[in-house]
């Protein structure tokens, strides 16, 4: 097992809710509420979960755009959880980010050249062959025409813009790239191109990725390991094949069953069944006691409301992996609430 590049222990981010003239704090949105996660050198860790589960906040904590309320984040053994902007500066070279929205992540008033050379400028990185050459090399690297360096973002398509965002992230030759839903805003045909580009670049530059997404099939394609988040907590972490074959947490089971299968013949043959969750995700302002998933879980019992399940590997199950559940799902278990997909909903 390779060493951990980034390690998070008990990381929390609470956004205060204030009221009135004196900004009295009346509560907090617990976007990320105590997560333990490690990213190993050279791997791609997928982070999945539905909207509002805190995936993006977690990504912004790891790049230290946000400061954690509690817990520690270490990068290459160095504690970065409370470093100031100035202290973080040299570390920015090693951790970079790719953003979700290719339309708002590029400044419309800057040329592509200015956007991609900004990291070199801010970090004072010498360019032996001139800034223009460096920018053109980066453009070529991500599959764009190097002659386009003085065009503006509005002259590019969504996929091309995302490539510009990738070029900007690569400019500093980082070790870790945190990709916050990098393909969810793109057409499906473009998604594959961008994901493949990211894989090629990973091989070429020995990159480590944290790939945040809600699309399970994309995550399955690119990830080595996958972590599942629900309401600010990590509920399950496992190697990709292990997780997709033997999901242990009821939430993961439900999430997996919601992935659409494009081929109706295969869908019938596999006797695929769906788990339908009822109700909404509870508010992160006032999350349920004990296990956060218990309000929507078909296996919930009394202990789930009183005791929070730790993220552990159960010894009684040989195929188990890190799961935060009192009653993990076992193989071939009939799940209550599961019903054939063929029945019209």
């Amino acid at each position: 097992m390779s060493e951990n590049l980034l390690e998070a222990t008990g990381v929390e981010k609470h956004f205060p809710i204030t009221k009135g003239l004196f900004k009295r704090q009346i509560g907090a949105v617990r976007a990320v509420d105590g997560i333990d996660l490690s990213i190993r050198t050279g791997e791609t860790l997928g982070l999945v979960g539905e909207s509002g589960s805190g995936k993006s906040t977690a990504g912004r904590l790891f790049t230290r755009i946000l400061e954690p309320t509690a817990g520690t984040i270490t990068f290459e053994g160095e504690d970065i959880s409370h470093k100031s902007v100035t202290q973080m500066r040299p570390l920015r070279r090693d951790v970079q980010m790719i953003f979700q929205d290719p339309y708002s992540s590029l400044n419309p008033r800057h040329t592509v050249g200015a956007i991609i050379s900004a990291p070199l400028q801010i970090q004072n990185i010498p360019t032996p062959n001139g800034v223009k050459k460096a920018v053109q090399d980066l453009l070529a690297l991500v599959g764009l025409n190097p002659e386009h360096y003085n065009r503006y973002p509005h002259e590019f398509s969504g996929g091309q813009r995302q490539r510009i965002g990738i070029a900007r992230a690569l400019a500093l030759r980082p070790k870790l790239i945190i990709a916050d839903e990098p393909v969810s805003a793109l057409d499906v045909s473009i998604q594959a191109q961008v994901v493949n580009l990211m894989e090629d670049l990973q091989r070429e530059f020995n990159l480590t990725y944290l790939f945040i997404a809600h699309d399970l099939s994309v995550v399955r394609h690119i990830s080595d390991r996958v972590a599942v988040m629900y309401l600010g907590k990590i509920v399950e972490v496992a190697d990709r094949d292990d997780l997709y074959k033997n999901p242990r947490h009821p939430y993961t089971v439900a999430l997996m069953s919601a992935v659409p299968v494009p081929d109706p013949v295969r869908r019938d043959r596999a006797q695929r069944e769906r788990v339908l969750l009822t109700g909404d995700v509870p508010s992160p302002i006032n999350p349920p006691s004990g296990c956060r998933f218990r309000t929507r879980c078909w296996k919930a019992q009394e202990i789930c409301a009183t005791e929070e399940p730790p993220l552990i590997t159960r010894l009684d199950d040989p195929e188990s992996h890190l799961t935060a559940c009192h009653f993990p799902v076992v193989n071939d278990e009939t799940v209550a609430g599961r019903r054939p997909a063929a029945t019209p909903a």
Partner: protein
Amino acid sequence: MSLGPEASITDETTTPTADAAEERDRGEKAIAGRSLKQIAWRRLKKDKVALAGGIVVIFLIVVAILAPVLTRLWGHPIDEYHVDQIDPTLSTPLGKLGGISRHFLLGVEPTSGRDIFGRILYGAQTSLTVAFLSAFVSTAIGTIFGLAAGFLGGWVDSVISRVMDFLLAFPQLLFAIALVSVLPDTILGLGDRWSRVLVLVGVIGFFGWPYIGRIVRGQTLSLREREFVEASRSLGARSPRILFRELLPNLAAPILVYTTLIIPTNILTEAALSFLGVGIPPPNPSWGGMLSDAVAFYSIDPMYMIIPGGMIFITVLAFNLFGDGLRDALDPKAR
């Protein structure tokens, strides 16, 4: 008020041939992208009304700058009396239309017989100087405080927003009248004309900044949440870089448009203050002051009122048309 990508796409599809031709003409630079400035200029060129407004504005500025030359060529000094042009019994100008003739292009004043042409030109100097400088003051203060309020947020935002509310509710005209009567006639050794211009610029500019401040604050609030700001931060950029390199270029369009649109308001305010007698001290001319003088004569010499009134009307209209056109060119979505 950013220019969306769809704006440029429609622009490109409407003029494909012109684009191609220009692209070829540019030769070596053919692959260079068109900046938003170029797109806006292209759009503005098609807006004939705005162009006409712009031409009138430029014409007025040239006239104001060349006022001494033009007066020497076709007019008479502003404080030279021509009693021979006045009917001694009625004290109205001799001749038709307020005494318009080859020697007095816009006629003469009743009673004194001073040349209106020269006085209008010097009045343009005063009006435009006050309007431009006070617009500049408003824009500078408004941009700085609007950026600070929007970017820093928290208590800074609360304080600045309350100050803006307070200033917007303040009776500006009454304050100006009171202030002018208290201040000395000459400040900083500028002479009475330019000292009063300075006071007017200060008052109009200071009471005008909340309008721009609010717009800049709102735009900053929405821009601050855009991902390119976060991207810049994740590259290690400090706040000044984010403010001036990332945010300010995106604010340039709305700031430019609202500056153009407060200039006519400032011209009207200056005219109103001069009309009320707290503008430029006599014998120095200003359009508002001339209107005020004309009140006593409008039934017997209407031209004396029509000429400065018409000048104010044309100037304000030209600035407004130009400003509207500029807004449409820079932000097609607001139409």
